[in-house]
């Protein structure tokens, strides 16, 4: 069997599947073989569904053979974060409390992928209830980073990040409330796209914080992220936060030309207290974009100084409202860290919450004003390199800082404002990938994707990937 197949992207595999050069069964077997080889160490999966996947692959093969090719995703194996509902299948949300929960409908994103002919082969590990960024799950075991098994893969969609990076799935989906797509994407050296709030339906996704939650693609390439966005985007009356705005042919419209592009840099917030290795990689990427004809323009967004307060209050309060009954009735079933955060959310005041929403409004207007002057904003995705599993303190240039406070410092504003944001790897430092974040104006994901596409073409990673030969 050719396990190398599983290292390819959707963009590479789809034409081969369409032209019958590769069979969906052969591809699914390659992905499953990688799971057999690596998942014992990485622990990216809560559940592997081998038989179901092979049956689905056989069906895709039959359809393609008989001339009924459905499009780019037909016969592509995908595993999704275990927070998205599949009809009549368990969805644990990475929790003990929902261990036996069986969904009775498909999430909208799952329906769309099923219609596109995706082959599903498992459910991915995550931080319990998506309420954290380490994926050190007390119930299903810690997920490890394929780049270094002693490090976290980030979270909460850590299983998605690790599975894509270790070729145990061709692509995946994550959810993002404070950075949970972009953080593992940065930590695992892959692409993670959080679209504009309302662009992709959240119907059938267990909530963490209604007003901050997003679903988005986690992929090997920018093309794959663009492709998944055009399949998954669109208005859904079942999601009250869905927005009726036209989507585009994002993958077909990708354009690497950045000549004349204006890149905004908010130095006082997004470049403050950044690990020098991370900063150096991001500055290098910016210089490369300048060489291609982009222009750097400093911007000021003063309300970012209050973003941490607004993010902390909004996420803790909404999450604690969602989990209140279980916190009262069966608190011992939560992991220690999640239980603690749920207690914190119970202590916020109504005034804190309303002020946080006012701050969000102010941020919306300040970001909109910034995007009148610049096309995109660029920053590091994380201020540090992925830390060891179990560490609650991160070292940033000799300063010991709280992991929880630092981890969402640069990603949280994208959730507060709902603006599209993408993390793309821009280099490797001390053996770990560095992520660069691109933010764009509301519902203009194409701008973010085009800049990412230009960066991808620069090959800043120099072909470096997680070394899977050391994992056994």
């Amino acid at each position, binding site marked *: 069997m050719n396990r190398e197949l599983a290292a390819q992207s959707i963009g590479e595999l789809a034409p081969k599947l369409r032209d019958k050069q590769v069979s969906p069964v052969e591809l699914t077997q390659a992905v499953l073989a990688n799971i057999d080889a690596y998942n014992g160490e990485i622990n990216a999966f809560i559940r592997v569904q081998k038989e179901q996947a092979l049956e689905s692959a056989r069906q895709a093969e039959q359809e393609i053979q008989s001339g009924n090719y459905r499009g780019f995703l037909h016969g592509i194996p995908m595993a999704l974060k275990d927070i998205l509902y599949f009809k009549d299948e368990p969805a644990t949300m990475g929790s003990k409390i929902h261990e036996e929960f069986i969904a009775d409908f498909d999430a909208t994103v799952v329906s769309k992928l099923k219609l596109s002919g995706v082959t599903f082969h498992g459910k991915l590990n995550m931080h319990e209830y998506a309420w954290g960024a380490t994926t050190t799950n007390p119930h299903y075991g810690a997920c490890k980073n394929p780049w270094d098994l002693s490090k976290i893969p980030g979270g909460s969609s850590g299983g998605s990040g690790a599975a894509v990076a270790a070729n145990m799935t061709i692509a995946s989906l994550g959810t993002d409330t404070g950075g949970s797509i972009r953080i593992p994407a940065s930590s695992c050296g892959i692409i993670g796209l959080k679209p504009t709030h309302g662009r992709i339906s959240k119907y059938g996704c267990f909530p963490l914080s209604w007003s901050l939650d997003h679903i988005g693609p986690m992929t090997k390439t920018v093309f794959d992220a663009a492709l998944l966005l055009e399949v998954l985007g669109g208005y859904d*009356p079942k999601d009250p936060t869905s927005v009726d705005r036209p989507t585009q042919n994002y993958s077909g419209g990708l354009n690497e030309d950045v000549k004349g592009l204006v890149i905004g840099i908010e130095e006082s917030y997004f470049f403050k207290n950044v690990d020098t290795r991370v900063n150096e990689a991001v500055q290098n990427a910016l210089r490369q974009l300048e060489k291609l004809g982009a222009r750097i323009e400093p911007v000021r967004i003063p309300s970012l100084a209050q973003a941490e307060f607004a993010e902390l209050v909004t996420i803790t309060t909404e999450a604690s409202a969602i989990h209140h009954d279980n916190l009262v009735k069966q608190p011992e079933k939560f992991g220690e860290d999640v239980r603690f955060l749920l207690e914190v959310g119970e202590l916020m005041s109504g005034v804190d919450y309303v002020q946080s929403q*006012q701050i969000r409004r102010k941020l919306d207007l300040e970001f909109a004003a910034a995007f009148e002057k610049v096309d995109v904003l660029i920053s590091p995705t994380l201020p540090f390199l992925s830390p060891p599993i179990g560490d609650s303190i991160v070292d940033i240039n000799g300063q010991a800082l709280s992991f929880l406070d630092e981890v969402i410092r640069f990603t949280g504003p994208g959730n507060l404002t709902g603006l599209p944001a993408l993390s793309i790897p821009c280099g490797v430092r001390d053996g770990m990938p560095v992520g660069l974040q691109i933010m764009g104006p509301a519902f203009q994901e194409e701008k973010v994707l085009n800049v990412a596409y230009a960066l991808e073409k620069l090959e800043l990673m120099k072909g470096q990937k997680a070394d899977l030969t050391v994992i056994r």
Partner: protein
Amino acid sequence: MAQGIHRILEERGIQVPEAHQEMLAQQMEAVQQLRNTVDNSQLKDFDMALTHVPGGERP
């Protein structure tokens, strides 16, 4: 502060492990520091902009 926090949570029916009491006090001190970054006079013109769809979502 730890005792006050314990009492508030207990009144809401939430049992707080002993190990969490001091941690919660520290966390709420950190929250208070963040509260101090908020200048309410700068916010008074901003609608909180929560939106509801009268009549529910589109059928």
